[in-house]
């Protein structure tokens, strides 16, 4: 017999984490010392993690920072403060960058001196099932 409270309620909305990867070539960063890399147009998504690594573990150049921004062509909004990264490991380091995402184009702003180094960055986005 069912209890008066009924069966246990389960979360009806399922969600997944999907990756958005971008290859950051630090040799392409000009004298201004910063460059924006497009990540995605978030659709009812939140960012769970930002992973940064390289093919071989190396120290990051002095002054290397990353920041999440949106740029809709009219306005640039800084979602997070610039975060310093000191190493690029093969198994990537994880940055928790709490940010409220709307639907505007999401970019990773990279601050770095020009260096012959390729960095692999992945945003782990969480998306909910549309019900």
């Amino acid at each position, binding site marked *: 017999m069912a209890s008066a409270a009924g069966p246990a309620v389960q979360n009806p909305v*399922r*969600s*997944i*984490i*999907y*990756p*958005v*990867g*971008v*290859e950051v070539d630090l040799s392409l960063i000009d004298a201004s010392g910063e460059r924006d890399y497009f990540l995605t147009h978030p659709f009812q998504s939140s960012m769970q993690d930002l*992973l940064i*690594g390289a*093919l*071989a*573990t190396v120290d990051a150049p002095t002054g290397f920072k990353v920041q999440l921004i949106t740029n809709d062509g009219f306005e640039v909004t800084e979602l997070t403060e610039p975060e310093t990264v000191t190493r690029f490991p*093969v*198994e*990537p380091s994880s940055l928790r960058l709490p940010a409220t995402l709307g639907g505007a184009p999401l970019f990773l702003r990279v601050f770095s001196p020009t260096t012959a180094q390729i960095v*692999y960055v*992945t945003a*782990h986005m*969480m998306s909910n099932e549309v019900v």
Partner: protein
Amino acid sequence: MGFFDSAITWVANTIFGGAANSAAQQAVTETAQDLAQEEVVKWVQDMLTEPPPDELDPYEGAGFTPVRSGWPVQFSVEAVGAPGAPPAGTFFVGHLPVCLFDSLRMTMTTPSVEDDARQESGALARVVQRDADGRTRFISGLEVGYAEDGTLVRQDLRLPARSPLVAEEQYGGEIQPSLPTFIVVAPYGTWAGVPNVDKTNVQVTLTILCQTLT
């Protein structure tokens, strides 16, 4: 009477003698024979419809549970050909979360099978990861052997130059979460006799199955 009924009758007659039994023997054993014959019929039916356990296909047996499930997420890249340079490239797709390999699909532009009728040149695609020791982990394709450093090598997905077909690989290995993952496109063969190389681009799509968070 079909083959199945004939087989049952033959087995039953062989075991119990059938018409060769004398009338006396038949009278004595008739009831027992009817009962036994039903068991034999059932036995033969079972034998014909269910193979012995040791002959069961391991992928169709009761213990086999397909595990390739999840939400499909796709990554698509295009390797662009240039004059004298067939399409090639290494494309970073991300540090993948917990997921399964589903498929790798490849097509080409400017299709014409007549240009390379012997199909001696073409493009290959594979999905690889780089592990913490700097070794390559092959993800897509059937296992074909081991490299000198112990790396398990898998078969590439191949498509002859300017083929109008779609090549698809649905077999692959484990994806290690958080390792950098790449789609690699490379030419094979000489491509010397392939015209319009600069218009021959290769499109590759990797599909993974992401797991639902609970």
